[in-house]
C-alpha cells in the first residue's frame, strides 16, 4: 500500500495550481484544434492537415504567428485601457480556474481533489468572478475608440443582463438539492444520479445560459462578425488579440467543466466503485476530462450547425423563456428535494 505523508495536501495544491495554468493553455490549443477539425468535418473540408500529423502542430504555428506579429495600436485609443483590457478578461478566467476542480485522486480511500483551492462556497465564487469578464469587455469596447467595438460591448451588456439571472437561479436549484455551495459537495451529491436527469429543465436552461456566457455562435452577437467586423476585438492585433481569443476558448473549456461538474456527475461514474490503487488515481480525472471534452465538442458542433440570433432575440430568449423556466426549475428542485429528503 502507498503511504501518503500527512502534509502532502498543501504541496499538492501548489503543484496543481501551477500545472492547471499550463494545462489550460494546452487544453485551449487542443480545443482550437478540435474546433477546426470538427468544423471542417461538418463543412466537407479537410481542415488543417499539413503541419504535423493531422495538422496538430498548426496550433504551434498559429501561436508563433500571433507572438511574432507586429502589434498595431491605433492613434486615438485610450492606451491604458487598450493594453489592460485583454488582461482583465484573462484574469477573470484564471480566477474561475482557481476554484474549479479538474479531477480527483483516490489514495487509500481518501479523496484528494485536484483544485488549486477548495472553499465551501466555490460555486458562488465562480459565478461571481466570471462576471468580472464583463468589466473587461466594457474596458475593451470603451478603450478602442471604435464604433463597432462599442456596439459589441453594448450587446454584451444586454446579453449579460439577460443570462446572469437564469444562470444564477439554476445554480441555486442545484445548491438547494445538494445542500451545499461547494462544487465538490455537489459532485458527491450526484453519486447515485446525475442532476441532468433530476433537473432536466435546469440542465437545459443552464446549458443555454452558459452558451450565452461563453459567446458561442448562436449567441456570439458581441463579435457579430458579419455586421460588426470583429465586434469587441475590432482594433486588436498580434498577441493582444490572441489573449482575447484564448480567453474565449478558456471560457469554453471552463464552462464545459462546470456543466460536467454540476449536472453530469463530475468525476463520478454512477454505480462504479473501485479499490484498485492505479484506477483510483487515474480514473476520476479521466472521467471528468472526457465528460468536459464531450460537452465542449457538442458546443463546438452547435456553432457550425445554426445561424446567429439577433441581439433582441437573445434578450427575448433570456427574459421570456430562460427566466420563467429557471424559476419553474427552482420550484421543482425544492419540491423534489423535499420529496427525496435531501
Amino acid at each position, binding site marked *: 500500500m502507498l503511504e501518503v505523508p500527512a502534509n502532502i495536501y498543501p504541496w499538492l495544491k501548489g503543484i496543481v495550481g501551477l500545472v492547471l495554468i499550463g494545462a489550460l493553455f494546452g487544453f485551449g490549443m487542443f480545443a482550437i484544434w478540435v474546433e477546426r477539425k470538427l*468544423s471542417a468535418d*461538418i*463543412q*466537407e*473540408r479537410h481542415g488543417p492537415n499539413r503541419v504535423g500529423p493531422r495538422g496538430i502542430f498548426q496550433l504551434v504555428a498559429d501561436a508563433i504567428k500571433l507572438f511574432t506579429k507586429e502589434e498595431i495600436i491605433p492613434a486615438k485609443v485610450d492606451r491604458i485601457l487598450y493594453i489592460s483590457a485583454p488582461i482583465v478578461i484573462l484574469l477573470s478566467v484564471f480566477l474561475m480556474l482557481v476554484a474549479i476542480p479538474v479531477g480527483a485522486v483516490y489514495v487509500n480511500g481518501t479523496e484528494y481533489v485536484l483544485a488549486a483551492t477548495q472553499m465551501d462556497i466555490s460555486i458562488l465564487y465562480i459565478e461571481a468572478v466570471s462576471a468580472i469578464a464583463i468589466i473587461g469587455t466594457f474596458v475593451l469596447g470603451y478603450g478602442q475608440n471604435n*464604433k*463597432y467595438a462599442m*456596439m459589441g460591448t453594448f*450587446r454584451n451588456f444586454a446579453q449579460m443582463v439577460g443570462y446572469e439571472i437564469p444562470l444564477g437561479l439554476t445554480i441555486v436549484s442545484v445548491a438547494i438539492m445538494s445542500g451545499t455551495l461547494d462544487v465538490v459537495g455537489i459532485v458527491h451529491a450526484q453519486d447515485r444520479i446525475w442532476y441532468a436527469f433530476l433537473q432536466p429543465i435546469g440542465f437545459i436552461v443552464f446549458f443555454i445560459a452558459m452558451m450565452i456566457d461563453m459567446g458561442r*455562435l*448562436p449567441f*456570439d*452577437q458581441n463579435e*457579430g*462578425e*458579419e*455586421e*460588426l*467586423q470583429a465586434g469587441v476585438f475590432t482594433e486588436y492585433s498580434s498577441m493582444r488579440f490572441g489573449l482575447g481569443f484564448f480567453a474565449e476558448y478558456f471560457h469554453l473549456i471552463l464552462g464545459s467543466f462546470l456543466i460536467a461538474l454540476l449536472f453530469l456527475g463530475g468525476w463520478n461514474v454512477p454505480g462504479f466503485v473501485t479499490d484498485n490503487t492505479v484506477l483510483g488515481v487515474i480514473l476520476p480525472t479521466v472521467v471528468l476530462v472526457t465528460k468536459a471534452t464531450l460537452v465542449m465538442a457538442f458546443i463546438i458542433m452547435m456553432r*457550425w*450547425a*445554426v*445561424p*446567429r*440570433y*439577433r*441581439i*433582441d*432575440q437573445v434578450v427575448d430568449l433570456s427574459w421570456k423563456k430562460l427566466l420563467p423556466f429557471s424559476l419553474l426549475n427552482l420550484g421543482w428542485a425544492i419540491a423534489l428535494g423535499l420529496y427525496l429528503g435531501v
Partner: protein
Amino acid sequence: MDTNIGPDEMLIHMGPHHIAQPGPFRLNVKLKGETVQDSDVEMGFIHKGIEKILESKTYLQGIPVVDRACYLAALTNEEAFVGCVEKLAGIEPTERSQYIRVIVEELSRIQSHLLGYGEYTEFIGFMTMFFYPMTVREKILDLLEMTTGARITHSYLRFGGVRDDLPEGFEAKCKEAFALLRRGLEEWGELMKSDTIYRERTVGVGVLTPDTAKEMGVTGPPLRATGVDFDIRKDEPYLVYDDLDFKVCTETAGDVYARIWVRVAEIYESMYIIEQALDQMPSGPLFPENLPYDRRAPVMRVPEGEVFHRVEDPRGEMGMYMVSDGSDKPYRVKIRGPVFPTMQAMPPLIKDSQLADVVAIVGSLDPCVSEADR
C-alpha cells in the same frame, strides 16, 4: 441622409470594405441603439468605364469586355450585347446554337444563384451552409469550363452563333451534376426550413411591397418574391425560350425568406430547362450560312441604327441600348443593369430594421456591385 445626429444616435458606415458585402460599396447607416433610422448608399468604388471602353473596341472585341461587367453573369451580359448586334445586323443564329446558348446561360444562372444562396447564409452567421452550395457549384462551373474553356469570363457567344459546340460527354456529366444538385437542394431546404433560428431571422424581415419594387425598378428574384410574375424569358422571349416549358417562380411574402426560396425554385426550373434543351436540341451548323463577317478576320460594319435588347439576368433585367453609326465600332452602348435599381431599394428596405438584419437584407438582394458600378 441627414448627417446631423442626436444624442442617442450613431452614424456607422458599412463598407466599402466590409465583411458582409459582395463588393465595394458603402452603406452609411444612422442608428438609434440597434435600429436603423436612415441610410444611404454610396457607389462607384469600382467604376470600370465599360460603356466607354466599348466605344473604342470593335464589336467582336466588345464581347470579352461585357463579360467583365458582372463576374457572375458573364454569359447573360454577352447575350444582351450579342443580341443587340444581331438585331442591328439582321443575323439570325442557327437553332442549334440558340439551344446551346440557352443551356450555358441557364448553367450560369444556376451557379450565380448557388453563390447567392451560400453567401447569404454566411451573412446571417450560418457559415456551414456556405460550403455546401459552393461544393456543388464547382460541378456546374466544371460544366461551363468544359464547354467554354473558362470558369468566369467566358467570351463564348459570337454574332450568329457560339464559339464551340458542346463537348463530348456533356450530357452525361450534366446529369451527374444535376443529380448531386437536386439531392443537395432537398437536403439544404430541409435544413433551412426546419431551423427555428433561421426562420426567426428571415421571416417577415425586409419586406418589399410590389409597389415599391416597381417604383424602384427592382427586377429579378427580389421582384418575383413579392408576387409579380415578371420574367423576360416569358414576357419577351428571346432565343428558343418560347419552345421550352418552364414556369415563373414567385412567392408572395416579399421578405428575405421568400427571396431565398425564389432563387432555390429557379435553380430547379433552370435544371428542367436545360434537360429539355438537351433533349430537343437539333443537330446542324453553329453559324448561319450568310454571315456578314468573316470568322477568320472578324471585322464587320454594322448598319446604322439604334436598338434595345434585354435578357433575364440571374439578378433581373439586363438590357443594352446600342447606337451604331455604320462603322466597325458601336457609337454608344448604354447598359441597363439589374443591380443598380435593386441597390436603390436598399435604404427604404432597411429602414427601421435591426443592424443585424441590414446584413441579411443586403445579402438576400444578392447585389453584384461590380455590375452596378460598371
